[in-house]
């Protein structure tokens, strides 16, 4: 049953699966649901976000199928409107926001810091329950109330729609709490629980990225919380904070909404960048080029990202002064991203690169980030945005960043850390095939959408003029390829979980701190407080027989 496995890294001859590890420390459902172990909570999150990804993916496919023809294809207009609302909300709040911080952050942040757990383990578990409760409420509201507002909830449409949106808004509010708890937990952990030797500038870059992300989560989410409450109250009681019919200001809603939702983009993409920094060092077996630049640019993006929200409002009646200020600041985000890209490419220079699935995703990530990021800069160029605002160009741009970059980061992390999390290897050949399919399918899906945007097709269109048909068909075809790639991954990972080759402690020959513990790690992570003497991304003085060191236990 075992699929053929080829890893470019050291074959772990004689690696044995540890007898006692976090996965078998208690096998009852109760031991999972009441666990305070950050690794188990990470697995709980993993299960939840994979379900969310599946749901969101199905909704996306329904949307793409509907858009196969200019007229009605498989669903009605109202269903279509609900479908893109569902797709947006599920993907953003249930998948993108928690995916990397709450799964891989939870799992690896304490290990990478040499800590036994996050600062507040109970709150960590609470955040998962809050997330589940919020998600359930949101989904319930979306399905029974049939919210059709789009994930942006622009007023006064959202406050006057006949569909019931109050539970959806409350669900978003509650999920926000979970996000705040996670972020808060991480920040405190990073500040107080670093092991001896892990100084600020010896922290792995993934930690820096998660740190920057957590700051955004903590500072931005409450504003969204208040906004959702106001919209829910307004829809239910007719308050009129945002409804001009009662003296409110709809542009104020857009300001408050994007004050969260723009930085939220960085909540999604920054951890992905952190993953790439980790993976690229391990596969290229090379120190990261410009550690400080990458670390500081994470903080820079988090900071500057807060002052850029107004570039979503260029055509909404915002003043030209604000438009100019926001556009100029938005450019800085591009600069910080460019710094990262240069440093990643620089890392490959004189490295020893192994072509494995994680590296394939790194390549995909680099391409999508550069292209998606540059189109983002183009969009922030005010006069160009006037044409592109709310067209498929915007859709394609943010999918390049969110699907392109974030999903590449997620898949790279999943493949790179799969041996550590579950102690087994995935089949490399299948993984490379799936990676190829996904990168290809992704391009085929979204490049036509850039052109659709250029041609002037607005987003959230159920029907469209005939002249857009060809590009829409191309996009739908690409989407099916993409979906197929995901199905392959799901199958081989499910098999590898049980039948994969035993990975051993350090199958990649990585120098990251997390590879010092057995795979899968024991519940306590470390027997005694570890002391790290090397940096996390250093490969110039690796021991001659890294492989043996890697499998010492």
């Amino acid at each position, binding site marked *: 049953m075992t699929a053929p496995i080829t890893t470019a890294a050291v074959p772990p001859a004689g690696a044995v699966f540890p007898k006692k590890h976090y996965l078998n420390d208690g096998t009852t459902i109760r031991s999972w649901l009441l666990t305070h172990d950050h690794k188990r909570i990470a697995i709980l999150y993993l299960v939840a976000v994979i379900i969310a990804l599946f749901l969101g993916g199905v909704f996306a496919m329904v949307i793409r199928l509907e858009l196969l023809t200019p007229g009605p294809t498989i669903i009605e207009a109202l269903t279509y409107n609900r479908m893109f609302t569902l797709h947006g909300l599920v993907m953003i709040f249930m998948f993108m926001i928690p995916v990397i911080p709450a799964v891989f952050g939870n799992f690896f942040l304490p290990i990478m810091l040499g800590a036994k757990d996050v600062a507040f383990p109970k709150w960590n578990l609470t955040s998962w329950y809050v997330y589940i409760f919020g998600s359930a409420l949101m989904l319930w509201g979306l399905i029974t109330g049939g919210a059709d507002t789009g994930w942006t909830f622009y007023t006064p449409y959202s406050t006057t729609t006949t569909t019931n949106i109050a539970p959806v808004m409350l669900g978003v509010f509650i999920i926000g709490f979970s996000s705040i708890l996670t972020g808060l937990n991480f920040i405190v952990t990073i500040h107080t629980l670093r092991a001896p030797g892990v100084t600020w500038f010896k922290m792995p870059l993934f930690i820096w990225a998660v740190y920057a992300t957590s700051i955004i989560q903590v*500072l931005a989410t409450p504003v969204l919380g208040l906004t959702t409450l106001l919209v829910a109250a307004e829809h239910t009681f007719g308050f009129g904070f945002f409804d001009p*019919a009662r003296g*409110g200001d709809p542009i104020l809603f857009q300001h408050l909404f994007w004050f969260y939702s723009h930085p939220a983009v960085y909540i999604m993409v920054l951890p992905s960048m952190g993953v790439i920094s980790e993976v690229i060092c391990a596969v290229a077996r090379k120190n990261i080029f410009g550690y400080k630049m990458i670390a500081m640019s994470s903080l820079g993006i988090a900071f500057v990202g807060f002052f850029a929200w107004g570039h979503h409002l260029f055509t909404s009646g915002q003043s030209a002064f604000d438009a100019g200020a926001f556009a100029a600041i938005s450019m800085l985000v591009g600069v910080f991203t460019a710094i990262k890209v240069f440093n990643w490419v620089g890392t490959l220079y004189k490295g020893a690169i192994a072509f494995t699935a994680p590296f394939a995703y790194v390549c995909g990530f680099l391409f999508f980030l550069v292209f998606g990021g540059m189109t983002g800069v183009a969009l922030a160029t005010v006069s160009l945005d006037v044409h592109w605002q709310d067209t498929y160009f915007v859709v394609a741009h943010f999918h390049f960043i969110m699907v392109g970059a974030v999903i590449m980061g997620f898949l790279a992390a999943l493949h790179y850390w799969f041996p550590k999390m579950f102690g087994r290897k995935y089949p490399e050949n299948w993984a490379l095939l799936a990676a190829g399919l996904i990168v290809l399918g992704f391009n085929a899906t979204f490049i036509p959408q850039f052109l659709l945007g250029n041609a002037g097709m607005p987003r959230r269109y159920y029907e469209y003029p005939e002249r857009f048909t060809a590009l829409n068909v191309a996009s739908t075809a690409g989407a099916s390829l993409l979906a197929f790639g995901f199905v392959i991954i799901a199958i081989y990972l499910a098999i590898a979980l049980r039948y994969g080759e035993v990975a051993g402690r350090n199958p990649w020959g990585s120098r990251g701190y997390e590879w010092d513990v057995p795979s899968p790690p024991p519940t306590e992570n470390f027997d005694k407080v570890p002391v790290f003497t090397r940096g996390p991304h250093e490969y110039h003085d690796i021991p001659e027989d890294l492989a043996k060191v890697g499998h010492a236990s």
Partner: protein
Amino acid sequence: MASTTTTGGHAHKELGPGRLFLNWAALIVLTLTTFGVSQIKMPVNYHLAAALCISVIKVTLVVLFFMHLWHSEGINRIVFVTSFVFLLVLMFFVMADVGTRFTLSNSRIPPMPRVDQTMMPSGMPPGMGQPPQRRPEGPGQHPGKAGHP
């Protein structure tokens, strides 16, 4: 009690009841001051500025002494100041927008276009979109009902 702790010293133990009481007295005095100032006759913007200044002083006192930020770890100070900075950022850009928008995008009584009634935005707050003399009068002006003679 005399039992100085084993925790190796948060200096904030220096803040004894006396200091706290003093701080409270200052807050009460400031509250009465802001109340008093509000009774003076002067332009409303001056009132706003005075009230905000006094509030900021009061908040500073509460934060520094009641909340022990004066003696706390630096990072807590950074956190709290940062949150206020972001509040101000939000405030600044939104107010800058409101202040510099196309005037008809937020002024209360835009001139009515010389076109027929159906071109009138129905969703106008009371008093908007109509010349002042036609503003609905009397009790319970119904917000959504503008636009019908």
